[in-house]
């Protein structure tokens, strides 16, 4: 018997496993079909996504364009911090925003001590779970999502997908383009804990607030409907 842990474990596992070619395994897997996804709270993707963001204890705003988006960021910062201090990832989508329109000039990079709010641009929004997806890297440093007091996310309506299977299709397309990122983050709400007496508290380690700004056409009614679906209206 080999003294190597690897060869010993793999030998035991192989002995208990069945051998098949990679091709036939892939066929067997395909044969198992696709997992059922959670039903969407409504057929319209934007509404369903917003409703789930709200159910995840996020806050949400809808805007019709980039200029309105930066104004919404400015308004949120002013409401919570009475300041316009903001750190944002080095994402071309964020760099190209008309920041002057809102009098906000983000610092692009990773969060520094004392910076209360961070901004990310979502690669995808998943209606099924109300989660946004980012790749770690300079366009979205993980510390920005994790160490800020409030995490603000811009989501383009065109980036919404219905469920997690569709999200992986989008993620894999992006991976083909840019390679495997170090981390893929699905974020769905402010950091929370129920570890003391089961009571839910926000801001366990990460952000206390999570704000999603959805950019798209004619979304006002979608937000209203989402509030109703989330039981907030």
């Amino acid at each position: 018997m080999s003294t190597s842990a690897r060869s010993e474990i793999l030998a035991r596992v192989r002995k208990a496993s069945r051998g098949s070619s990679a091709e036939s395994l892939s066929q067997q897997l395909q044969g198992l079909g696709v997992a059922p996804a959670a039903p969407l709270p409504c057929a319209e993707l934007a509404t369903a996504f917003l409703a789930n963001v709200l159910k995840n204890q996020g806050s949400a705003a809808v805007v019709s364009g980039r200029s309105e988006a930066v104004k919404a960021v400015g308004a949120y910062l002013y409401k919570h911090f009475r300041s316009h201090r903001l750190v944002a990832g080095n994402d071309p989508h964020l760099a190209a925003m008309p920041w002057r329109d809102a009098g906000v000039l983000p610092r692009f990079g990773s969060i520094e001590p004392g910076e209360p709010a961070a901004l990310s641009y979502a690669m995808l929004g998943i209606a099924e779970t109300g989660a946004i997806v980012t790749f770690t890297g300079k366009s979205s440093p993980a510390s920005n999502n994790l160490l800020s007091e409030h995490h603000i996310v811009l989501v383009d309506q065109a980036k919404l997908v219905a469920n997690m299977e569709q999200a992986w299709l989008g993620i894999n397309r992006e991976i083909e383009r840019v390679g495997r990122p170090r981390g893929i983050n699905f974020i769905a709400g402010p950091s929370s804990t129920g570890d003391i007496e089961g009571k839910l508290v926000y801001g366990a380690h990460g952000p206390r607030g999570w704000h999603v700004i959805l950019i798209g056409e004619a979304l006002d009614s979608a937000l209203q409907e989402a509030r109703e679906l989330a039981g907030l209206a």
Partner: protein
Amino acid sequence: MRQTSDTFLENASHALADADKVQRRDLMAVFTPLIRDAAMEGFGQFDALRQHVKQVRQHSLDHLGHYLTQFEEEALHNGNFVHYARDGNELNSRVLDICQQHSARHIAKGKSMVTEETGLNDFLERAGLSVTETDLGEYIIQQAGETPSHIVGPALHKSAAEIRELFLDKHDLGPRELAEITDLVGEARQVLRDKFLKAEVGIIGANALIAESGYSMLVTNEGNGDLCANLPKVLIICTTIDRVLPRAEDATAMLRLLVRSATGQAQTCYTSFYSGPRRELDTDGPLETHFVLLDNHRSDILASDYHEMLQCIRCGACLNHCPIYTGVGGHAFGWVYPGPMGSILTPLLTSLEQSNALPNACTSCGRCAEVCPADIPIPDLLRDLRHEETRRQLSAPRWRLGMKLHGWLARHPRLYHRLTGWAITALHRLGRKRGRFSRLPMAEGWTSQRDFPAPQGKTFMQQFALQQQQEMPSPVRDKPRKTRLRPEAGRTKAPRVKPSPPGAAKTASKAVPADKPARAVAAKAPAKSASPKSRTGKPPARKPRSRGPVKTRTEPHFGEPLEPQSGADERRSTTTGKPQEPDDVN
């Protein structure tokens, strides 16, 4: 951690003596199933999803050799070190080696039941390292010097008042109120933020490993695991070989079940997939990443008839729904994994000798199997462990003798029904006045805690026979049989449904056909009823493994010592996994 499963009964009595904790557990027993049920109802297709994920996981386990190797190749390609550990000692030693290679003193740790299993914290602390658990629940019990009582909410046994006292004692932060739970969470956040920033090494677990891409999946609400994975210069992911799934979408399909079963959410706040060290243009993330893949008897379980247990996704639903767990709490089980899943895993991962009380800590109510998102036949596996105990003479001789007598009696249905008929009639007459007994010979175990209700006059079989008699008008010969159950005691009074071949009475009296799936037996039959096994003296028919015919029982290790170990094995990619230069580290 020190195992005390062998004193389960004493532990349980001790736990039941604390009225406050009993009340807390009673509340949890109401609350946690409600939120799980609501989440599953919202999903709507629990069974379809459960079957899909089960098939995928069974496929993964059936071909674990292939998928584990594929995962290793991809993880190496992504720039990780991949280590294997045969047992807890190997995992602990490997982790310590890595920490020492980097002269690390401060370790930030995310929640990981695997490292609880191996006792990693104690091991590292004995070597002079400072280890901080960063999951709030784990942090609380670490400060209190306790062990987890629940695999999802490790500190749910503690009240806010107890935690307040603990924090006032442990945190040197001057006089303060800490009146609200939010204050306690805020203080832990403040204290732990420093620990994250100071740590040289982060250690986390993994909820799944993805073979096609070499990513691991981490599911948290607090974000503490992600801070451990992103801030320190070195990341070590400790997990087990059975966590491998073929594709990313398989991991998120499982996630749908995991989160709803564990916390009643549709999605946790953070679901993160990590592939390795930081990339060329990245501004953050660890510079070096390691996977330590633990076996610790999983490969034995894989080859045994208990292999379904490897499908467990550690959601804790079986704990929340178990009358024994919610009665006595997690600590009574005496090791890392409590409740129904723990009563199977503990004997398999340690030894049946050390934990033979655990498989008996079961009412066979079947709730665990009903809610298990992995569809593990938990009551069946527990029953098989009980058979194993009897076979290996681990249970008390008196108990075995009683079971033997009962088994013999159950194989003689005429005598069985006659004797029970007499006993029931006698008890009925004796207890007619009061309707209950506060004392009964040979039943002190029952009557010391509660009254025994007086039987209402006839046995179930006698009543059943009467009912059949009333329901069945003549001529009965052409009517189809309603059931295979046919009363023995009442047979002389009941009209014969149709002529029985010789020996049919014996067959018909059998409560459960031998070919019926074992799960149904366990869910329906009371613990002491005659099971197919006690009738035949052979192990009960288990569902055949999907990969072939039913195997004869293959025992797992049950604590046999492993071969003398050499160091855990390690591989490193030669393509992208070059170790960083010291300049890059600093």
